[in-house]
């Protein structure tokens, strides 16, 4: 297994299969009365978050704790980072404290890659700039696999702010690797010109795409993008790119609806749509813990000596 998880592209199809298979066993652990196994007793996992992300950090924290690892949460506010410490010095400090894994979220694309050259610990990318969010893609693949027998030929649309979305990039690469077909849907301003090179199709007509989908994946739209003039108004965005009840009716009966969270109810997804049984958004959260347990187990449960 890989030492660092920096990008979904570094994983082979077999690696993804192994991670997801192992995650199934951890999913079962999450249903036990005692949701904890001793697999990583004595290992130390540091959550190093330069951007706020409560859900991803909690998910990693729970994953590590359910494996009996010790967890240190290092957030930048109120720490040495706010006193001007560089990433390198922070990394070397964590190294000196004996961290076995560093989970990093950073606003700069490539920060986890750089970090991986400074430390002997395993580095897990928990989102870097507009680059990638590989553990989100893996938990999405796991959730998709719960509903469909195979990724081969599976049709997925990612709808919304593709340009600024590391989730969209990782999931597109991941689905393409597993044999699925991805269509990126959104206004031209929010789809980067190089998107076709990711192995995905591009569409600016959501209603034309919906009837052919197995998975409809809605992205969170950040309201400040409107101020940056990527779209004229939130209401218009919602009307053109939001998943309304009427649009859900255009989906095939077997299609599922996903969202990486946190949701803007009433903007990219209608509130009643988010609560439909086929909206598997809370499953994604539950599966996220299992997939992160799987990664930590496979990456740290080895002899590096």
């Amino acid at each position, binding site marked *: 297994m890989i030492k660092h998880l920096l990008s979904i592209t570094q994983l082979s199809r077999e690696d993804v299969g192994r991670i997801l298979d192992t995650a199934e066993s951890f999913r079962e652990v999450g249903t036990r009365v005692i949701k904890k196994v001793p697999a990583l007793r004595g290992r130390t996992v540091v959550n190093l978050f330069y951007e706020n992300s409560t859900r991803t950090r909690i998910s990693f924290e729970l994953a590590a704790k359910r494996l009996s690892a010790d967890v240190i949460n290092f957030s930048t506010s109120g720490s040495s980072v706010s006193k001007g410490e560089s990433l390198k010095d922070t990394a070397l400090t964590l190294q000196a404290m004996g961290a076995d894994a560093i989970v990093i979220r950073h606003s700069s694309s490539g920060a986890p890659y750089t970090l991986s050259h400074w430390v002997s610990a395993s580095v897990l990318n928990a989102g870097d700039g507009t680059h990638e969010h590989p553990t989100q893609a893996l938990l999405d693949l796991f959730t998709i696999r719960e509903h469909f027998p195979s990724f081969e030929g599976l049709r997925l649309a990612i709808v919304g702010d593709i340009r600024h979305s590391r989730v969209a990039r990782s999931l597109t690469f991941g689905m393409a690797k597993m044999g699925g077909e991805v269509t990126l849907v959104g206004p031209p301003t929010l789809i980067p010109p190089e998107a076709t090179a990711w192995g995905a199709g591009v569409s600016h007509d959501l209603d034309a795409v919906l009837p052919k989908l197995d998975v409809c994946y809605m992205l969170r739209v950040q309201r400040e993008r409107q101020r940056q003039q990527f779209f004229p108004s939130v209401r218009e965005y919602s009307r053109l790119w939001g998943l309304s009840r009427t649009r859900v009716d255009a989906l095939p009966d077997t299609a599922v609806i996903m969202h990486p969270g946190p949701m803007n109810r009433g903007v990219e997804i209608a509130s009643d749509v988010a609560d439909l049984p086929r909206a598997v958004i809370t499953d994604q959260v539950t599966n996220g813990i299992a997939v992160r347990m799987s990664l930590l*187990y496979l990456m740290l*449960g080895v002899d590096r000596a």
Partner: protein
Amino acid sequence: MASNDAPREPRGVSVSGFAERARLLEAPEIRRSVTRIAHEILEKNKGAARVVLVGIAARGDDLARRLASEIEQIEGVRVPVGVLDITFYRDDIGMRAEAPEVHETRIGFDFTDSTVVLVDDVLFTGRTIRAAMDALVDFGRPESIQLAVLVDRGHRELPIRADYVGKNVPTRRDEEVQVRLAEVDGEDAVVVGEKEREPA
């Protein structure tokens, strides 16, 4: 995708890289051993009313299912059967180049106030059973735990013994004992041999 289509892929024991030296048990002997152990379980526990079987993956679960159907034939009672994977409880995680492969765990019943009979194919160092007991108590508090194995090959490293043994087989420490079951391997047999050294 995580299908359990029969015949399942053999996991855990690799058939390749194994030089067979002798066959210790054939299908009829395995069948008689399972039948005898089923009788012994019923005798010792005065029936099957509060007995559950938990097989250790892989192959212990297949043996547990066989024991359950024997018990049903003898006593007319269907005892619950669970499967337990002990990977996360192993004491050698982090000591190999690859993390140990994980199997499925499925214990769909509450065994509080029951006697849990752990079922495994081979009893060797006892470390698997130590891990299994640790795993089991995370699911509940059984009234007691007993151990049934098809083969006891000796060389214990922990103070553990089996309550029910199909056959005691004296072995050398460096030998390998393989239990093959029709459900997984296409035949019933217990063979002893040597692990072939993989070229470095």
